[in-house]
Structures are given as C-alpha cells and as structure tokens.
C-alpha cells in the first residue's frame, strides 16, 4: 500500500497570476462571514414585496449582480426590466451564459463591467447586434472566464471559501484575460488554476414556487442557482406562485433555497417570459426574434423598448403588450407538447 504522506514534506511553491483581468468583487471569506452575520436576516419573517420596492431598496447603482437561470431560461425578467426602467447605472454582472438577460441590461445601459463566460449571443438564435456594439465600443470592462469557472466561483462563495482550484482555462488566452492564479496541488504537485470566490452584491432568481419567507422550490435543472443563492449578499426571489409554508414542510427535500438566504420575495406569474419556464411555458421565440430585429436600427430599438419596458407600468403591462393570456396559453401548450 502506498502512503501519500511519504511524498510530503514542507516545500516552497509559487503562486502566479495567470491573467490581467480584474476581479470585480471581494473574494475575502472573512468579510463575507461578517456581512452574513450582521446583514442576513435570520428571522423567518414575511418578505413579500413588489418588484418596484425590491429593486429600489435592494439594488444600488454600482452593485454587482448575479442573475439566476440560464440566459433565456428561468430568468427573473420582471426585475431586469425594472432595473432598466429605473435607469440603474454602473452595475457589474456575472455573465454566466447571459443571453437575453445581458441583452436587457445592456439595452438599458446599466452595465459597466462584466465577468464573461458567455455574452452577446443568444445561443442557437444568433447574436444581439446591440449588445455586441456595446461590448465592441469598449464601454464595458471585461474579465474572461468560462461557464464552469463562474459556476465554481459561485460555489467557492457558497462553501464559505475565498477560492477553489479548477482544471479549466489552463494554457489559454481565456486565462490570460481572467483573474485566475496558477498554483499547484499540495498533495500531487498537479497544476491548477485558482479562481476567486464570487460573492455578488445582489442575486436575482426566478423560481417555480416559494412561501412568504422565501423557502423555494425549483423544478428541473438548477443550473447554478443553488450556489448563487448561497453566494449572494442580498437575494431577490421572484416566483411563479406563492405557496403556504405547509407545502414546503410536506417535502423538505425539495427546498433548494431556504428562507435564511432570501431578502425579498415577489410573486410574478409568467416571470421568466419571454424565457422558458420548465413545465410551465416555453420561450417566446417570435418575441425574441422581434427584439433582435429591432436592434437593426437604433430608432426601431428605441420604439421597441418604449413599447415593452419604458412605456409600461410594470411586468403585467409588458405581458399585455405581447399578447396577454392568449399568447401565454400558446406558450404553455408549446412547453407541455400539447397538440391542439
């Protein structure tokens, strides 16, 4: 039997920054602990509020934001629109497969720095010309990462650490424009990159259901939201529907986000529209195509945004503008593969 300690002795090693990308958020776990101790409400109290109040009270100009879901799947659209309507400025963003969410925030001119895993594109749908122009103009400060790197940065924070070792990015320009650090394994000497914990100022996550305290259930894939919820200093939950606490207690294993992580709860039916909400409604590909088409011309885009965001009072106004219940019913049938 081989004992690995026989190989082990005190030794000097080198930590070397792998890139020149900026780290926009404080990875310090002790400072995060103090914040969580002093600012996170342990009290299981009603947290139900409006989108307007959640955004005005919990998102400040300059904050760094992490958005749940995956681009145009289970995204908190209502909060993103409200951020735009309120003209929030100089936000930082975790661009963790940020597709339509990125598009919304860039349209509003809200972002001035971004940790990139995936931006500008909308996956199979093509690219957002407007977002692309904004990035190419140099108006957004950029640090490169990957989807796994950002998910692990959230996980580092969720674990209460200041870093995690990873095996991606090594040897590439992605690393050279990242904030990762080259290091080695204390046991094997293998090369790793260390990535810094990412504790966003605000996390925004849309869920299927939660109680008034914020105990939340999500159906289907979690993407990175179990970790984002734990990493975020403040957490806004929007939910398809509010449920009694009793339903939470009936199946405790379904609680992905417990109340003590949550600072605000808003009930927003169809809240991921025009994104896909698993088991509820499919993405509105027509509307997403209209948006991308509107970007061909600044005037058209201005009109489009006026019609759907600036000119409506709230998210329900937006839903009315895109066709209301009738359209949402079609998207429900698409999602559930019901043929009519």
């Amino acid at each position: 039997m081989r004992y690995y300690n026989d190989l082990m002795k005190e030794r000097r090693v080198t930590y070397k920054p792998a890139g020149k990308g900026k780290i926009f958020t404080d990875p310090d776990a002790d400072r995060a602990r103090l914040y969580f101790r002093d600012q996170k409400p342990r009290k299981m109290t009603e947290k139900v509020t409006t989108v307007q109040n959640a955004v005005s009270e919990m998102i400040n100009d300059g904050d760094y934001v992490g958005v749940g879901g995956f681009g145009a799947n289970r995204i908190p659209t209502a909060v993103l629109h409200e951020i735009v309507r309120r003209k929030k400025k100089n936000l930082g963003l975790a661009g963790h497969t940020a597709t339509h969410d990125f598009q919304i925030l860039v349209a509003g001119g809200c972002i001035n720095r971004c940790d990139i895993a995936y931006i500008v594109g909308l996956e199979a749908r093509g690219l957002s010309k407007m977002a692309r122009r904004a990035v190419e103009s140099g108006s957004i400060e950029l640090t490169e990462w990957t989807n796994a790197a950002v998910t692990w940065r959230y996980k580092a924070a969720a674990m209460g650490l200041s870093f995690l070792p990873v095996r991606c990015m090594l040897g590439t320009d992605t690393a050279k424009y990242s904030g990762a650090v080259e290091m080695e394994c204390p046991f094997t000497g293998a090369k790793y990159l260390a990535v810094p914990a990412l504790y966003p100022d605000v996390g925004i996550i849309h869920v299927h259901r939660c109680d008034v305290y914020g105990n939340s259930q999500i159906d289907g894939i979690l993407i990175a939201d179990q970790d984002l919820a734990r990493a975020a200093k403040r957490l806004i939950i929007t939910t398809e529907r509010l449920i009694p606490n009793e339903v939470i207690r009936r199946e405790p294993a379904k609680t992905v986000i417990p109340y003590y992580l949550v600072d605000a709860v808003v009930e927003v039916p169809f809240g991921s529209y025009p994104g896909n909400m698993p088991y509820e409604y499919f993405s509105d590909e027509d509307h997403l195509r209209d948006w991308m088409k509107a970007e061909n011309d600044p005037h058209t885009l201005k009109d489009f945004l006026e019609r759907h965001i600036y000119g409506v009072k709230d998210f329900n106004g937006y839903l009315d503008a895109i066709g209301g219940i009738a359209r949402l019913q079609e998207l429900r049938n698409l999602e559930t593969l019901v043929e009519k």
Partner: protein
Amino acid sequence: MMEYNNMELMICLASRYLEDDSIVVVGTGAPCAAAMLAQKIYSPRLMIMFEAGGIGPLLPSMPISVGDSRTFYRALGASSMPDIMETCQRGLVDYTFLGGAQIDCYGNINSTMIGDNHQAPKVRFPGSGGANDLGSLCWKTMMITPQDKRRFTEKIDFITTPGYLTGPGAREEAGLPPGSGPYKVITNLCVIGFDDQIKKMKVESIHPGRTREEIIENTGFELLWVDELEESEPPRKEELDILRNEVDPYRYIIGRE
C-alpha cells in the same frame, strides 16, 4: 446518389464517430443534430448531456438552448451545471463538440474576439461559454465547421479553448488532463484528425467532389495528410431520411447552409 447540402453532410459524418454506450456533451445546433442522429441509427444508447444540467433526455425536438426544458425532457437526470462540469472534470465524458470563429493547426479554437484590443475588440463573439471547459475536460473534442482561410488560420487572435496548444506535451505541461484533446474536425470539405506524434491536423478523408487543392486553398496553414487518403462516404439514405424527417423536420439546422 442522393442530393445533400454541406450541413447535412457534416452532421451525417459526425454522427458516425459517436460510439454506442458512450457519453457526449453537446451544444445546440449541428452537434446536437449529430448526436440525435447517432442515437437513432448507430448508437441507440449514446447518452447525451447538456452543460446546464440535462442528463439523458428523450429529446422531443432540437433544443434552442442548452438549458431549455427539452434538454431534460423525460431525462434520466436533471441536475446542475457544476454537476455536469464536474462529471467532465472527473473524466466520465467521452465526447464533446465545439464550434468557433477561428481554429489553428493544433485545434486551438477562438470564440472570443477578432482584433488585438481585448477591451474594445474589432469583433466580439460570445466567449467561452462552456467551450473551454468541455475542450479541457472531456476526452475527445470534435468540431463541425465550414472550412475557409478566414477560419483555418496560422495564428488565431485569441485561444478561447485549448486544442493541443503549442504541440506535443503542451496540454499536459499546462496542467490539462493527460489523454484529452482534439479528435476530429469535420468540415464541408473533409474529415481531419490529428497526428499522434506532432498533434497537428491531418486530413483523413476528402468529401466526394472535393479536391486536395481546394482544401489547401481554404486552409491558412500547412495540413498533414494520411498516406491512404480516402473519399469520405457520403450521407446514406437512411441517415438523410432520419435527419430530415425526425431530427430536424423544420430544417432549423440543415436549412442554414
């Protein structure tokens, strides 16, 4: 002989490389079509994973996003991005498929930017997404891409995803898992592998009607060639029938050419 377009050709060829009883992580588009086609003909137990958490779905149609609900429709599992990425990092994923704007002779891929100013690039692409992760951590990386001098270049503007980096031993030297790396590049002109020794692109078969000269003209670096260069077997009738009628009936992908 049947008519087919370049996209159909690439998807059919790619589908033949996915062994049965293996695991593949795919994105949307042509790679997903290739994996679905493989499942329906050659590799019924090929397990398709998506980086956002979908595990082994019975895909009812082509996903639009690697995180949409189709990616875990009647699936074996619906987990999370860290779970899938850690499954790759643990060495359980055999294949992945990537695309990109530029590729060099070592299979390094650029999907980040054109230009030399990172803060204000001439052209900005989406960035790595999961590409760097999958190309670093899965065992065999495949590419489906049109071939031209603009894409196949001596020096790419930004290495988003590692191929063999600067040649033999470079991946290992960088700390990437030994034994992983680029496997096949399937283009509209030919199928390209990588030389075992020097890790550079090596053409393995030329598609029907294409020529060596045409391939050279459309490549910005020197290619290697296998000694017994073959003609790629064109799409079979069964492949095309299933691709057109079952995998992509609305021609989302195969209509793009």
